[in-house]
């Protein structure tokens, strides 16, 4: 609450960054590889690709963006972003999933 900054500057060892970087590269290869699996275009394939993407995003947020070492307030804000994403998905899908409940002449 003072004008000085009370942040605890946590020094992250370079090794951690390098490890995360390697992990991201491995996951990148995995994404590309998964696209060549037989039956790409299937639902399963999408699930695999998205799962890998989420893991990558979490790594970036936690380590490269320092959220792991940050205050609770930062955690709150980071989660708010995902909560808002959820709002977007739920209300948008609420439209898509109910659009055909009322039969419309000429549709399908």
């Amino acid at each position: 609450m003072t004008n000085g900054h009370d942040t605890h500057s946590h020094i992250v060892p370079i090794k951690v960054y390098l490890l995360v970087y390697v992990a991201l590269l491995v996951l990148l290869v995995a994404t590309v590889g998964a696209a060549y699996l037989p039956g790409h275009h299937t639902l399963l394939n999408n699930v695999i690709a998205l799962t890998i993407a989420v893991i990558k995003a979490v790594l970036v947020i936690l380590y490269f963006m320092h959220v792991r070492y940050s205050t609770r307030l930062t955690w709150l804000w980071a989660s708010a972003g995902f909560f808002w994403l959820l709002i977007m998905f739920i209300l948008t899908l609420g439209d898509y999933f109910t659009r055909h409940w009322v039969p419309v002449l000429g549709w399908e």
Partner: protein
Amino acid sequence: MSVAVAKHGEVKHNYLNAGDTVLSWLLTTDHKRIAVLYLVSVTLFFAVGGLLALLIRLELLTPQGDLMTSENYNRVFTMHGVVMIFLFLIPAIPAVLGNFLVPLMVGARDLAFPRLNLASWYVYMAGGLIATWAMVNGGVDTGWTFYPPYSSSYSTSQVTLTIIGAFLIGFSSIFTGINFIVTIHKMRAPGLTWFRLPLFIWAHYATSVIIVLGTPVVAITLLLVAVERVFRLGIFDPALGGDPILFQHLFWFYSHPAVYIMILPAMGVISEVVACFSRKRVFGYHFVAFSSVAIAVIGFLVWGHHMFTTGQSVYAGMVFSLLSFLVAVPSAVKVFNWTATMYKGHIEFRAPMLYVMGFLGLFVIGGLTGLFLASLATDIHLQDTYFVVAHFHYIMVGGTIFGYLAGLHFWWPKMTGRMYPEGIAKLAALIIFAGFNLTFLPQFVLGYLGMPRRYHWYPEEWQMLHVMSSAGAALLGIGYILPVFYLLWSLRNGALAGPNPWGATGLEWKTDSPPITHNFEETPIVTEEPYAYENHHQQEEVASGTGASTAEA
């Protein structure tokens, strides 16, 4: 208090005379100077948007589309919307008044990230110049809403460039939002607890939440339109396998909350001014504070009310309609509380207060007509008519611009050290009020009768209403030009203001006008609730015979 000015005269150091080279302005990290940079820029863009509006009203004087081709008419109203929304209404209050006042009000020396603040202005200018470049090189004709597939596949206008401009401007407001959030969390003066914060700060906090959580979505969505347009990648265009309604979801996910980005800061201004010129604390402080937060959150749940007739599921429509009615509640809470604040107050009819009273009436009309539009059945009749145009102008012009002008006059003495001339300022406020209503009241009737928006041909029998509207616009134009002149005039000739010409509470009034570069000689310590007008009447009596406030103690 006024001694400070009297004793040292005009040689006293302040942020304005802290350097007078062009570079000292262009490279400044002082939030107050950046606010001035923004003030000049948004005023210029407002003039551009205003001229485009006058072109629209000139065209609509006659039932025939005789002043310009339909293609050009499309461009004119689109550019009016793009300039007014992205380049004026969204940045106006936060980037000018907010920038200037947030650090002062929380008792800090500057915003948390001064260089990010300067970067925000540069990014804004880059976006604004790109959008201007697009305007003079063919313009845009999609409407400010950029709906595909027209925008992505058919329009031959400068859609991509304009989108890049809007994208950049979005980032400038994200920078501002981040700065406000961190400053309000981290840099409050000792003793300044959350519930001692001025409501202007609460409003800007809520606005920043919306900006930070919503703007990235519209930025990416618009970029996707550009991607579809340039690379023919099917995202929104059905011919390419896309879904145009998906665009509408993503666009309005931001753009409905964006209307609150435009109105919440104005509401913050209203709370400050109404308390000061009623000489009372704001009625129901906690309710007004939390209603800002409620608006920020619930405002994200209602976007589908723009899509009742565009192919959205009726069930989603019902949910969005219900939620839209809910979001009106916190807005109404504020209006009732401001009215209750004025009740039995010692009301002073200064120019800012006139704008506040205009705001109250016009915002109620704008908000209530929003409920007409949020009702599924009536919206079928009203969607895409002038009723919608009138609705949002009542809020954005009658609300946001009135709030902006109220704030600009109220804090003008703080920003410049000079009083504006009261008489002519009041006259301008009255002209603006009259011109505004003459412009937009007939548009409710036109819309109800079926006049669609975005067309320049219309049946003869509506001409009278259109003529009234155009006449009002001319009057409104005069009303807006007046402040430009008398405010500039006051820079040299206005009476010296002294630190606190209104006898107002709040930390920004406890330092010089104009403030020194680091705002306060020493960090202030806060020991009392906000708006303690009734506790100590006129403790901060003002001298210098400036037409300064001397409400009866």
